[in-house]
């Protein structure tokens, strides 16, 4: 499990870089590095489906964000507050970790999940759905309704982006506006 700790440490450092660096492009690249480390961590945790999806989504997000930030590098005023920022971050993290230490004792130990419901999927999934990829059988058969929701969210986002980037939102008084593509 040493790899996992290394990956997590890498992700935390990457996140700090992404948050604190002033250059916009560097921010985006750093967050991309975090995402790719996450993808490797998924692979390490035996979740190949998730790893593939995370990888492709990460590439896509990176392309979109780079296109959005390219040539729009703006000066960015965080100087002079470095100490304050660090203190606030420290407090945040400390509160979360203390609460976490107190609460995570109730959770099952890492590496030993309860798997009450999931046992059904593992034992009967192949026989009942015929799909050898159990994750596939869960997302498209046992919990296909969630996937309908997921597809709908992406649909919503597409329509939303197309609606937001319209050239003209409101019609002016007495003006005839061509419905655009």
């Amino acid at each position, binding site marked *: 499990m040493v790899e996992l700790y290394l990956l997590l440490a890498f992700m935390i450092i990457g996140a700090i870089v992404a948050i604190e660096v002033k250059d916009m492009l560097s921010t985006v690249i750093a967050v991309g590095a975090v995402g790719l480390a996450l993808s490797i961590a998924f692979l390490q945790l035996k979740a190949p489906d998730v790893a*593939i999806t995370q990888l492709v989504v990460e590439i896509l997000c990176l392309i979109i964000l780079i296109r*959005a930030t390219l040539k729009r590098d703006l000066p960015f005023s965080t100087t002079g507050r470095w100490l304050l920022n660090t203190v606030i971050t420290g407090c945040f993290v400390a509160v979360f970790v203390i609460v976490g230490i107190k609460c995570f004792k109730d959770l099952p130990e890492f590496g030993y999940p309860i798997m009450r419901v999931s046992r059904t999927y593992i034992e009967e999934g192949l026989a009942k*759905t*015929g799909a050898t990829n159990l994750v596939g059988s869960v997302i*498209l058969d046992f919990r*296909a309704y969630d996937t309908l929701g997921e*597809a709908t969210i*992406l649909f919503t986002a597409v329509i939303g982006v197309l609606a937001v*980037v319209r050239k003209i939102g409101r019609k002016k008084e007495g003006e005839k506006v061509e419905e655009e593509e």
Partner: protein
Amino acid sequence: MSREHEKGMSLIVKTVTRLTVGIIFLYGIYIVSHGHLTPGGGFAGGVIIALSFVHLMLAFGREAALKKLSRAAASFFESTGAIMFLVIALLGFTGGYFFLNFLGKGQPFKLFSAGIIPLCNIAISFKVGAGIFAIFVALVILELEVEGKE
């Protein structure tokens, strides 16, 4: 910047793109069609298919990619994929339940198995591929407009 984009990137990039874009596209189709057997599935495959078009657009410019898949076609495929998925879900009512896996399960480890799961994968891949391409085109066009104004 905007004129450069109409033309695309350098010759090396274009040549490599010409070689790789077909492979990426086929890989996407493979991921979709084997979603119920191996890791992957409709969503990842759909994004890969969309990325192959995005790749084309980045290398050759907007026009080349839109010639292969126009915006109208993209939005048509997107809605069709969504409706296909919903229809598969509603067809389950023939067996009594919303989203019932009403087809035969077939032999495990075969390509044609697992009932509606491959069909759903295909529907999702249509939806996702076309949808992400549409988002990307919309953002690129917006960006070109912004740059044009400055």
